[in-house]
């Protein structure tokens, strides 16, 4: 009897629960560690701010794992409402027209308060179609900057307040640092593909591919084997032989940061969002910040750098009230207060002008040297067709190809021209595959 009663009580409770339930939306993300905790804090703040909707964040592993999981879930009809996808997955997401709900359209359909003009063009430009419509909601965007060890610079007799602005200066500084014994190596870098090829191209206003770096259509082709890129890779190979440059590994370059933290390399290039990590790890020395170096004999350099990071994509196949919830949540997420807080905590770029202004007002940049470097760099000039970003199909694999060819270059198997020609040939084959599959 008792059991029966408790059963019916449970059933009733469950029923009552569904009847009154808020609309629950699932958000799959790839933010681990402290960033993940901060993300949950933001979501908790949203959930507490109103009672109609509830966002449930789920950590799904790395970027690649999160994207794969969402795609597999979509195929099984179990997709989340919102998924965080890294910038190189943009081409894949965009092409999946029946699977994604473009953000501009979502906001329009749901009648949400949404002003696309309030967003920083350098950030959202990467994620808009050729008509200027925003396809996904930028969440965590960053851009590579230069970090350097001020103590080593001083020890080598260099001005510790002056970061090398050009590659020629960087080479001279590195030589002086090594000759004076202040450090063993000049510089190292994370993300060869992102920093030393894609951003290098944008920074020098060189095309990464045809069709406006792939924005114009699936039939684009890579053009990264131009003279500036070849010259830079030649230099990198030479610098590696001379010990000026040390390779930190493929992908993000896991070994690059330790080389900088251990004061083995005096200069380090990586995401502006690495700033917090760099400060936390640079216990025995002072960190300086600078923009990426450029070749001063290239006309139009420096142009502006491009971003990396991830955006939030909305997936199709849900009830209308879910999309209402998503629109409301995105509105909250892009509010100046939330954005400024996330930006200041993480080092990611603010996505709106209002959040940028608010951070300025709060005196954040005066108190935190280097925090504005990335922002200044992406907004240095109005983005050109070569510097607003890139969008190619199968780009996750193309990134691997870039790493592989770079490794072949450093091991002396091929020269810079051959390596980059091969990136173009192999990359184009992958883009053609993608084109064929998405026709």
């Amino acid at each position, binding site marked *: 009897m008792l059991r029966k009663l408790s059963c019916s009580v449970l059933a009733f409770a469950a029923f009552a629960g569904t009847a009154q339930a808020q609309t629950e939306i699932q958000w799959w993300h790839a933010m681990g560690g402290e960033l993940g905790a901060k993300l949950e804090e933001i979501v908790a703040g949203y959930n507490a701010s109103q009672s109609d909707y509830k966002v449930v964040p789920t950590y799904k592993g790395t970027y690649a794992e999160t994207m*794969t999981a969402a795609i597999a879930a979509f195929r099984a009809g179990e997709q989340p409402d919102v998924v965080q996808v890294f910038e190189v997955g943009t081409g894949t997401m965009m092409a999946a027209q029946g699977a994604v709900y473009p953000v501009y359209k979502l906001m329009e359909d749901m009648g949400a308060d949404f002003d696309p003009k309030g967003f920083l063009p350098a950030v959202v430009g990467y994620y808009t179609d050729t008509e200027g419509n925003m396809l996904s909601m930028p969440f965590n965007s960053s851009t590579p900057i230069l970090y350097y060890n001020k103590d080593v610079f001083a020890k080598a007799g260099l001005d510790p307040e002056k970061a090398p602005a050009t590659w020629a200066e960087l080479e001279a500084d590195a030589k002086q640092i090594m000759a004076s014994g202040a450090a063993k190596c000049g510089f190292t870098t994370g993300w060869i593909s992102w920093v030393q090829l894609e951003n290098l191209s944008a920074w020098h206003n060189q095309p990464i591919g045809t069709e406006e770096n792939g924005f114009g259509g699936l039939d684009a082709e890579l053009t990264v084997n131009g003279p500036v890129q070849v010259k830079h890779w030649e230099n990198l190979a030479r610098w590696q032989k001379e010990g000026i440059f040390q390779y930190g590994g493929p992908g993000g370059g896991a070994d690059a940061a330790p080389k900088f933290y251990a004061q083995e390399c005096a200069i380090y290039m990586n995401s502006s969002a690495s700033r917090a990590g760099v400060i936390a790890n640079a216990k025995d020395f002072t960190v300086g910040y600078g923009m990426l170096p450029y070749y001063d004999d290239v006309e139009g350099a420096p142009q502006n750098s491009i971003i990396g990071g991830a955006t939030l994509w909305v997936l199709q196949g849900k009830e209308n009230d879910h999309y209402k919830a998503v629109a409301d949540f995105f509105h909250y997420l892009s509010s100046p207060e939330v954005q400024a807080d996330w930006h200041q905590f993480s080092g990611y770029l603010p996505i709106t002008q209002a959040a940028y202004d608010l951070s300025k007002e709060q005196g954040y940049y005066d108190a935190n040297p280097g925090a504005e470097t990335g922002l200044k760099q992406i907004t240095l000039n109005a983005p050109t067709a070569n510097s607003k970003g890139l969008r190619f199909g199968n780009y996750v694999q193309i990134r691997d190809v870039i790493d592989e060819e770079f490794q072949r270059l450093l091991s002396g198997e091929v020269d810079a021209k051959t390596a980059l020609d091969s990136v173009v040939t192999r990359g184009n084959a992958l883009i053609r595959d993608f084109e064929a599959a998405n026709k």
Partner: protein
Amino acid sequence: MQHKRTTFRHRGLPYLLLAPQLAVTGVFFLWPAGQAVWQSFLREDAFGLKTSFVGLANYTKLLHDPQYLGSLHVTVIFSLATAALSIVSALVLALAADRVLRGPRVYTALLVWPYAVAPAIAGVLWWFLFNPTIGILSYALRALGHDWNHLLDKTDAMVLVILAAAWKQVSYNFLFFLAGLQAIPASLREAAAIDGAGPVKRFFTIVAPLLSPTTFFLLVVNVVYTMFDTFAVIDATTEGGPAQATNILVYKVYRDGFIGLDLGGSAAQSVVLMGIVIVLTVVQFRFIERKVTY
């Protein structure tokens, strides 16, 4: 050959008894394998929105893909080297453990230990030891004049994954060899010793031939191991790099399918792999079962 025969009273009973096993095989092997075969004839975008039948295009592309042929080449080198290294070192260790008089169980237990280590952990362990920046072994190698860098040097990377994979497998081989050695009658060895055969001669004329079924069995098992179970070792150490120098077939299936989202191509690769397993299994049953006398 002797046949054992059990007679069931009902015709249906044996099938009923087999049903659970058949269901498991069907659900967890035949169904997914069938899907892989079907998928290998398709070209599909990542979300499965546009699918087209392309016949054997995925296969012809594979055979003309220098990366795939390179991966095949890498797999052969990796498999044979790992199998050889783990078999030879296990044999040496088993011979040594077989002669230990004091506390043989302790040695045996210690030697079997690595087998209990998860492949991913083993990979991370070797990755740490040989890490060009922070690894102690790479530091030692540098002191000896070899600039170890498996991030760039293809040979270094190959050596690293072979060491890590072989180390994991030594324990398994060791157990089989030890059992094999202990099954060799002492009288045979003693008789040979009395006839004046030295330890080396005794090993090559008596021990090695009597161990040959074990060795052959281990060779097949090890090759299968290196081809399929070393995924975690590769993933934790080199991720197939540098420049695909350690991108073995099974790792390539994962990279192309799960990271690259090229499902058709990846499925075609798994079908090829499935073919290789079938061949290896046939070899094992045909030759080993026939030759081994228990």
